[in-house]
């Protein structure tokens, strides 16, 4: 077993806040930084991680066949061609909805821990059985949310559940930050979210149209060492995860023009 193998659950509660995008990009970024990484799609009812990684046509087996011993683990793992340090394992088949149990998740993860430095589990949305299965094998977690009331509320529920399960550390990624709206105080500030959820901030990802472009192509932004804001953010998250001290971006300093300066003046506390 890789002695320092880490199993990290990536979850959010609410759907559509960027769990799968984070899992795909973090997986690629860690692999590029030399870490043997596997991404496990625990959302087998509605799986999409394969699509984001451009591996949708290469899935033959899933964790179900491995557990049923109809194939070997090596056969089920889909290796990424451009980034051989990364492998994908779908937990299951959308047609077998009731199959996976927490014990199954634990046995598949302990197999993966033997050969990978990082096991990233892409958790389904919600806090029901899908979440409980995915969380069963996780030691630590990354909660991803956006600066919106509904996403933060759902993240809070998930954090409560992770705490009672003893998952630790739990770190926060704030996604789809719009500096302009934050500066105009029309979006929850970074401090608002971290204060409310009381979690350490692992990363800030700015709203970035390139995310959609990369999803269209099935090539995660971090794959080509891309220079777009979100690509840099994901790569930084991967470095921080490995203990490197990478400073967080300050959304308020993103604009450098006169308009941004006026905006900053307007939000300065004067009394």
């Amino acid at each position, binding site marked *: 077993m890789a002695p320092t193998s880490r199993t990290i659950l990536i979850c959010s509660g609410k759907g559509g806040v960027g769990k799968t995008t984070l899992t795909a990009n973090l997986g690629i970024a860690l692999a590029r930084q030399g870490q043997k990484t596997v991404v496990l799609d625990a959302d087998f009812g509605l799986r999409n991680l394969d699509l984001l990684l451009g591996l949708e046509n290469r899935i033959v087996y899933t964790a179900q066949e491995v557990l049923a011993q109809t194939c070997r683990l090596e056969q089920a793992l889909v290796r990424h061609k451009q980034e051989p340090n990364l492998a994908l394992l779908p937990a299951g088949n959308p047609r077998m909805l009731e199959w996976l149990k927490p014990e199954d998740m634990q046995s598949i993860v302990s197999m993966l821990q033997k050969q990978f430095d990082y096991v990233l589990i892409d958790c389904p949305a919600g806090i029901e059985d899908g979440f409980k299965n995915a969380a069963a094998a996780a030691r630590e977690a990354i909660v991803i949310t956006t600066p*919106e*009331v509904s996403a*933060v*509320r759902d993240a*809070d*529920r998930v*954090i*409560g559940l992770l*705490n009672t399960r003893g998952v630790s550390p739990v770190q926060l990624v704030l996604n789809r930050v719009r500096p302009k709206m*934050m500066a*105009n*105080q*029309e*979006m*929850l*500030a970074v401090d*608002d979210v971290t204060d*409310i*959820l*009381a979690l350490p901030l692992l990363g800030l990802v700015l709203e970035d149209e390139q995310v959609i472009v990369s999803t269209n192509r099935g090539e995660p932004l971090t794959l080509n060492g891309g220079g777009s804001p979100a690509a840099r953010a994901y790569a930084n998250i991967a470095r921080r995860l490995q203990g490197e001290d990478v400073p967080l971006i300050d959304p308020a300093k993103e604009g450098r023009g006169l308009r941004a300066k006026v905006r900053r*003046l*307007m*939000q*300065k*506390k*004067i*009394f």
Partner: protein
Amino acid sequence: MTLRDILDKLLGRQPASATTARERLQLVLAHDRSDLSPELLEQMRKEILEVVAKYVEIDLDHGDVSLETEDRVTALVANLPIRRPLAIPTRNNDQETVDA
């Protein structure tokens, strides 16, 4: 208060929505975390006020019992301004005479 807040006031504009978002979130999370429905909280509030009113005269208009959350810890906070203690003969008075 920021320049923006002053401008908003002068122009009669609605305050920026981030503040509203923060306040609404804090309230809803306090309820989520404590698993108390607004009805239950209201019932508890009434009963607390009744108990306190037995001992002191409280200012009901300015009293407030609410849930507040900080660092994932939820606290029940009661702010009950006291007008004056009720002038009822209590055990305290009896004790004073005994002591004397």
